[in-house]
């Protein structure tokens, strides 16, 4: 059931500083580019901003000075993924702590993520940023945590890697229609199955693509957003979710994660149901996460994602079309649009609900989007966004 806050807070502007393997820019420059674009998109300037919802990579004080925002009365510097920044901004505007909040997120390919990144002298001087590697070679945490639970999932349901391959192929096929996606070569199931194994059973095509880039969003009241040039996209329902036992190794099982908590709480606050959803944007930082979101959010039961994807597969376009209509990560997701740590999913929701996504990728007449963000351990969230009808 809808809550007092439902649809009262809106995203009034969005802009992406494009994600590519290497922008040759600092994180601050990319954030500035995204924020300037989002403000222009919303028909606003720095003087209209009184809140900054920032990241740990570029703190809000740094950005405020760089953008020339005269005064702010509220800010935060949240960890990834970007729903933290978006939800914080929503509550700040709802509470009156700020009226117009600039939300931003940036990724910068740190030298720890690849050999090519390590060879870049600028990145070496930058340090590891938020990509601090695991120091214990035997710990099943971070990426290894996802790999081990992916293996458990396949084992428990008698499935093989083609399940995850469908997630990867769907993302890549969609990215072919997104001119801003970082990976734009077609991908077949055979390509997927031949990909280099990193952490069994997950290959390099099962994990998000390290990229440079930034997204920014203008968050304000729906009432105020209606006076601005763009059609407001409202936050209808949202929840985070975290379970008591949330450590990768100690997690009870995949049926007791933050995903279930976020999904149940979000649906309890929503008038929309799964039947109302026009576009589905599940987080896919690892393919197993998207696989599970189909099941946890209610499209199918545990272990049924493979059958579900197969049943709704468009063999001509090599992508998922739920009931021949609902697209899944039409921007390409983290695996192909780029490892945006969730900001790409919210950006795509806004573009879809404004009817501005490119041809073949736009769901015609989309009014309701479902975004499920984060994974199993300590970063799950879900939200329904709607095109404002006011």
């Amino acid at each position: 059931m809808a809550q007092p806050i439902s649809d009262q807070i809106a995203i009034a502007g969005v802009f992406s500083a494009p994600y590519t393997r290497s922008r040759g820019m600092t994180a601050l420059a990319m954030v500035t580019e995204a924020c300037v674009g989002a403000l222009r998109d919303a028909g606003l300037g720095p003087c209209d901003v009184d809140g900054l919802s920032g990241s740990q990579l570029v703190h809000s004080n740094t950005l405020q000075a760089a953008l020339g925002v005269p005064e702010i009365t509220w800010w935060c510097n949240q960890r990834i993924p970007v729903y933290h920044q978006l939800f914080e901004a929503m509550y700040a505007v709802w509470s009156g702590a700020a009226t117009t909040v600039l939300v931003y997120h940036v990724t910068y390919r740190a030298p720890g993520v690849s050999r090519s990144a390590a060879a870049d002298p600028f990145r070496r001087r930058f340090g590891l940023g938020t990509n601090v590697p695991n120091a214990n070679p035997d710990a099943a945490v971070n990426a290894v945590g996802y790999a081990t639970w992916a293996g458990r999932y396949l084992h428990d349901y008698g499935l093989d890697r083609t399940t995850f391959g469908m997630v990867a192929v769907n993302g890549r096929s969609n990215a072919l229609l997104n001119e801003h996606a970082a990976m734009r070569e077609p991908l077949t199931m055979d390509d997927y199955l031949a990909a280099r194994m990193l952490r069994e059973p997950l290959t390099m095509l099962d994990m998000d693509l390290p990229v440079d880039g930034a997204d920014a969003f203008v968050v304000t009241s729906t009432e105020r957003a209606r006076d601005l040039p763009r059609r407001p996209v409202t936050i209808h329902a949202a929840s985070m979710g975290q379970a008591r036992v949330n450590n990768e190794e100690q997690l009870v099982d995949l049926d007791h994660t933050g995903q279930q908590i976020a999904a149940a709480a979000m649906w309890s606050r929503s008038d929309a149901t799964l039947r109302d959803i026009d576009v589905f944007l599940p987080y896919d930082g690892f393919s197993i996460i998207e696989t599970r979101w189909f099941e946890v959010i209610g499209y199918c039961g545990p272990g049924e994602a493979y059958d579900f994807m197969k049943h709704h597969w468009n063999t001509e376009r090599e992508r998922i079309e739920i009931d021949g209509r609902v697209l899944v990560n039409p921007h390409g997701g983290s695996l192909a649009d780029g490892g945006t740590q969730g900001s790409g999913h919210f950006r795509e929701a806004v573009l879809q609900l404004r009817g501005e996504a490119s041809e073949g990728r736009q769901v015609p007449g989309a009014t309701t989007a479902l975004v499920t963000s984060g994974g199993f351990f300590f970063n799950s969230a879900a939200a329904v966004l709607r095109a404002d009808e006011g």
Partner: protein
Amino acid sequence: MPDHPRSIDEVFDVFPNAPITHDNLDIYLGRLERRLLVKRCRACDRYHEPPRSFCPDCLSGDVAAAPVSGAGRVVLFSRVHTGPAGFGIDYAAGHPIAVVELREQPGLRLSGQFVTPDGRDARLDERVELVWIDRADGPTPAFVPSSEEV
């Protein structure tokens, strides 16, 4: 009085890369002597992982490192082909990591290298027992297939 005669300086010398804290110091003191320890509450007898100074079940502060068998079953497994350098691990062959649920308590798990003569993968749910291996960063607990099962 600590249960171990070894000095704190020695722990930092023998485990130069380990994230040693006041919460897990006892665990590493045990490793020096190849004793596998897990934090256990003396008020409610529950074990917990990762190591903490307060019991997450009853919130008692009377927590101490207690010996465990290291025997249990493999709950999670992955062979990884990339990982932290400096431990002498051959990632080309793949580094087999097992997460083992200890027989002492349901849900209590430790991770470690899975060791077999033929280098095979662990089977999920197979029974294992403790073995100590030596690495650049000191004595390290690892797991071998259970001798009871063979």
